[in-house]
């Protein structure tokens, strides 16, 4: 190897060192959002049974401590859930559907006649049981786990989760 060749190789060596010092930490830095958030899910009380009428869906906000980057917001609405009370004797007595549309994540509303759910963004329509009534949404509205406490006016507790949009199955987001 000639002296010149050696020098050229050393030049590339130095460039590689500088490149790696930038590239490796830089990529790690930019890939930080892939870090597991470690956000646990828990059951939160949303309403009491007496607030619900059979067959009439009502939306309730899920209030949770929210960590947005470095900021901590105490008890912030992080989502909305439709609760639908079922006729007596049906199990479960209350169905919870997240208001986030499985199509592209807009907030699903109750249609004006109160007989179906309607997403205002792309007009996906769902029955009150959450079944799609047109072909916009790839899957039914996402049901959430419900716990109902005992007592004269039981508390309805819901485990709020988010799911991957557009998928034809329910896939929880980590």
């Amino acid at each position: 190897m000639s002296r010149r060749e050696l020098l050229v190789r050393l030049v590339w060596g130095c460039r590689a060192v500088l490149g790696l010092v930038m590239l490796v930490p830089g990529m790690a830095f930019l890939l930080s959002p892939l870090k597991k958030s470690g956000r646990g899910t828990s059951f939160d009380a949303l309403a009491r049974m007496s607030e619900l009428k059979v067959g009439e869906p009502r939306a309730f906000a899920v209030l949770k401590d929210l960590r947005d980057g470095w900021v901590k917001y105490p008890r912030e609405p992080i989502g909305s859930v439709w609760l639908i009370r079922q006729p007596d004797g049906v199990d479960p007595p209350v169905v919870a559907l997240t208001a986030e549309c499985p199509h592209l994540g807009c907030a699903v509303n109750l249609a004006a006649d109160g007989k179906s759910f309607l997403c205002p963004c792309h007009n996906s329509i769902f029955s009150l049981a959450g079944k799609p009534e047109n072909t916009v949404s790839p899957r039914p509205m996402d049901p959430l786990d419900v716990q109902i406490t005992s007592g004269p006016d039981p508390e309805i507790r819901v485990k709020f989760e988010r799911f991957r949009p557009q998928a034809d199955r329910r896939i929880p987001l980590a």
Partner: protein
Amino acid sequence: MLKSLTDWIDDRTGYRSLLAWARDFPAPGGVGWRHALGPAFAIVFVLEAITGLLLMVAYSPSSSTAWGSVFHIEHALWMGWFIRGVHYFAGQAMVILIGLVLLQMVVTGAYRQPREFRWWLGLGLLFLTIALSRTGHLLPWDQEGYWSTKIETNIVAGIPVVGPYLQRLIVGGDDYGNATITRFHAAHVVVLPTLLGVCLAATIVLVRRRRTVTDEIARTEAFWPEQALKNLVVAVVVVVGSIIASLALGGAGLDAPADPSSGEFPARPDWYFIWLFHLLRTLPSDLRLVATLVVPGAIVSLLFLLPLLDRLLPKKLAHGLACAVVLAILGGVGYLTYGSLRADAADAHFREALAEADQTSDRATALAADLETGVPPEGSTYLLRQDPLWRGRGVLERKCLGCHVAEGKGKGEQTASDLAQFGSREWIGGLLENPSSKRYFGATAGAGGMAEWKRASKLKPEELSLVADFVATFAVVPDDVTPDDWLSTKEIADHPGLPLFQKECGTCHVVDGLSEGGTRDAPELFGWGSPRWISRMVRKPGAADRYGFLEPKHQMPAFPAEQLTRGDLDMVIRYLRGDYFKTAPAAKAH
């Protein structure tokens, strides 16, 4: 395969001739380490641009979010502390590199004709690098950046006539805040780097122009690859040095969030301005313009005029004079810097303030990192302002410790009780044991009632302890509970200390539904040590249910809302009750 691809690209773009133009040129004066500093400066600048761009992805320029976003970079994002550390230290190294380049130009006479413009561009690079460093310093919006920016812009304000206007333009108004950050941010990430890039490009053009037109240099060697290697080696040394500095010092460091209301923060300028700072503090105040304007102005003008000296004096004499001037300046700077460091090292007060600033910064870090606390939505300034340990203790020290003490320490002559752990079982137990201790009523004029009781009381120690247990339950009475509600809860109704309290204390102290008092004047005790009891004590110490029976001159002065805000009172109360976020290191620091 690769060859045919590059051939194809070269055919369409001609990039090879561009590369050849960039590297295959003769290096005038030969190759050597002496020519590597300037190019290394340029390489490090490129690395600064890359790390800066990365930081920009996560930085949020506003007074409420800047500190939090930098904290997030440092502690939450992968390698964030490393990138910020390299960005910071390599930036400092740029100041050194360009300084060395200029020094070299003076010593070798390279500042003279026909290279005047290269000298002026070099000076431009120096000032731009310093400006980048200064603007970058503010961006984290921590104590260090805030106070040093305030000092520096106040120095600008001292310039006659235009100073105040200049300051307002730099700061973006009267106060340091959002407008300051957005301005500094724009300057730091776009304006100054662009100008620096333009100066660098112009310098490169000039270097190569001289190299191709003049034949004043006898020896020319190829730039590639020997000089390229030397340049890169210097850059690698700078980067490795920055990495070592980051590793050794734990990154660029982040002080507590900026707080304009904080007391004495021991702000010092960056190392290259310490001499000016020291000159400023050693001169009498009527001479301060000497430090803020005359000396820096003279140095800058002299440096700019240096190449023109040749026109007035013989060449050799001019060069000698230039060297002497620059060495004198460096000597003066070195002398003043050394003097400043020595003065600070000998200043116990400064070291104390520094230690306190470190503690505050540790506390802020602990609060921000914790999932329960975090940076409040109102902004990073409120991180510590809403922390009872920091804010409550601060307010207590300013408002209360003129008369009271805490753990025996006060700010004046003690004429009231020791407030440490006020409301606790331990405090009330101690009071019942020995009311005339200075910790309780021993230092309080006119408050001899408890001591009188103690002399007459025949309570056995275990009975005394039961009474203390009972009184300590007052401190946890919630705000919305009445004496009736409280007395009808089972634990209270069955408390073994209750009959003793009724018999021993109830003859003087009133508790609705429990005791009538009447023998002697005494404050009402329901809820003693609870937030609402303390709150009323602070707001209306002269009320009939507090210490209104004392002679006015012996009463505690009232602190109405104008003197002590609701929020600050809450902070003091929560501090006294120990109701704050606790970490092992912060507890030790306390």
